[in-house]
């Protein structure tokens, strides 16, 4: 029971960390996207289309090993194609937003994500507002197999995150890592050093949205039921919070995501245990307010620290 509970959350955290790592990369090239959850949604719905095409009757037999292996292959294909589709959409959108900088870009991506959610809600092919139920492809989420199910998705999440993390480390050790930092510090100076900053931003955005798309397809098959509301700003907000708290460090943002996710789950448990079922549920419903206050606190923290530090410096000098 506890192992299963742990793995269940590990799988969810894995998806959140994939989103965090990729959004972090986008922010590092001075593109403050607030619509990453929209690309997450596009990936999930691209996964829906892929699944409907490859499993038309919505049932995948899991009787033999062959069934299971081909199901796993199908799942990987689904994740891969969702990544490709979402990366393409990401590339097209950033090209459309070419003239939008800073907060204008942030608002444009936010609106874009809102549109994605609305289109999904009105498109019956992908389930509409009622949502879409995906068939179990490699492992069944039932009975004795539940443990394997959550374990399978948790390890898939870990594997994808590890790949991504190592990829980003490689990137940071190449000249492109230097270009990313340089263009973040001073875009104009970087351009006058011959760095094509706009292409850098486009490419990074393409890759990051592809990762968000992959995370969406993973989410689809792990939860096996998605509704448009899963891709709302409220669910995208924690990711933004993790990136802000991680202060744009590739490792720090992972730590922030894992730490905050765990803290939040523990808190929920505590509430359930201490306050009883009703109050615990109420606490869970206040999640948004809680997140918003942490976000505001995170925004104010540097200013506060500065305030606290200044008098001390004056005193010492």
């Amino acid at each position, binding site marked *: 029971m506890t192992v299963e509970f742990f793995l269940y959350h590990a799988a969810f955290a894995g998806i959140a960390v994939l989103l965090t790592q990729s959004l972090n990369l986008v922010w590092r090239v001075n593109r403050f996207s607030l619509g990453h959850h929209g690309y997450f949604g596009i990936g999930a719905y691209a996964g829906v289309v892929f699944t409907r095409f490859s499993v038309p009757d919505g049932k995948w037999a899991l009787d033999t090993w062959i069934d299971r292996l081909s199901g796993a292959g199908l799942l990987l294909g689904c994740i891969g194609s969702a990544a490709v589709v979402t990366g393409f959409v990401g590339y097209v959108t950033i090209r459309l937003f070419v003239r939008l900088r800073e907060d204008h870009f942030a608002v444009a991506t936010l609106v874009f994500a809102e549109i994605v959610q609305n289109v999904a809600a009105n498109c019956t092919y992908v389930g509409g507002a009622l949502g879409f139920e995906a068939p179990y492809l490699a492992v069944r989420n039932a009975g004795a197999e539940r443990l394997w199910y959550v374990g399978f998705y948790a390890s898939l999440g870990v594997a994808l995150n590890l790949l991504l993390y190592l*990829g980003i480390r*490689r*990137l940071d*050790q*190449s*000249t*492109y*890592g*230097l*270009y990313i*930092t*340089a263009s*973040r*510090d*001073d875009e*104009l*100076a*970087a*351009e*006058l*050093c*011959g*760095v*094509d*900053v*706009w*292409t*850098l931003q486009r*490419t*990074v955005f*393409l*890759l990051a949205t592809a990762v968000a798309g992959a995370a969406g397809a993973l989410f689809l098959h792990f939860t096996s039921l998605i509704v448009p509301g899963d891709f709302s700003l409220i669910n995208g907000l924690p990711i933004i919070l993790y990136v802000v708290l991680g202060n744009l460090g590739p490792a720090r943002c992972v730590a922030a995501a894992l730490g905050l996710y765990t803290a939040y789950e523990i808190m929920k448990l505590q509430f359930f245990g201490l306050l009883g079922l009703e109050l615990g549920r109420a606490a869970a419903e206040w999640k948004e307010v809680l997140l918003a206050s942490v976000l505001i606190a995170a925004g104010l923290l540097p200013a506060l620290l500065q305030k606290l530090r200044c008098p001390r410096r004056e005193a010492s000098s």
Partner: protein
Amino acid sequence: MNGLVSEPASAVGQAGADVLLDLVGVSRRFGGLHALSDITFRVRKGEVVGLVGSNGSGKSTLFNVITGIYAVSAGRILFQGQDLSGLSRHTIARLGIARTFQSPRLFTGLSVLENAVIGVDAPYKTPTLLNLLRQLWIPWHRYASAARGAISACRLGMHEDRNPATLPYGERRLLEVSRCLVSSPSLLLLDEPTAGLSDEESNALIRLLHGTARDTGLTLIVIDHRVSFIRALCDRLVVLNHGELLEDGLTAAVLAAPHVIAAYLGEEG
């Protein structure tokens, strides 16, 4: 324009094939302000040109239009015969035009060495997906040797790993110069390189620039307020006054011309 003084320079300008930079009637307005009006002059390969003028005369603006930060309001800028209008900044830079800024613009998130590596004319400086996948396997240290050469030429070798924000002002300027030299540009634009430098440091900079110009045929345009520095470094002077070309000629002649003294040098004392 004073005919006597401008004679040698325009003779120089006629040498067609040798022309590196050709400004034809370049103007730039900011609203109602004419920051540059109808500037025309040519710079030959290997020349060291001083660009002088009082504060607000349009010197930095001229650098900004050459490097593509601002578009020209009228006129054309040709570099090696190619019209620069409409080209992106990084394209202009990669044609071989490097510059420093009036107040140094370094990358404070990078070390001294890494700053210089940004200048290296690496292959794949346009990060398309394909280029990115290729470059992923090449650590930036591969490009560090050229950068090391440039920073040690500016005597910054011992600061390799330092954050440039912690360097004294003069050394930050030198780092910016070395970041430019790393790419072996054909045209180097220096905006007040000696501001904040000690006499000893400016002399070292003169030696370095002379040496580089001799070895690589580097062409230089230098904005500076220090007459001694200009006199020691430049063969030729272009004088701007309220956005207009006041004078263009050999250094000694221009510095002696009464109307130049009146418009510019006079106020310096």
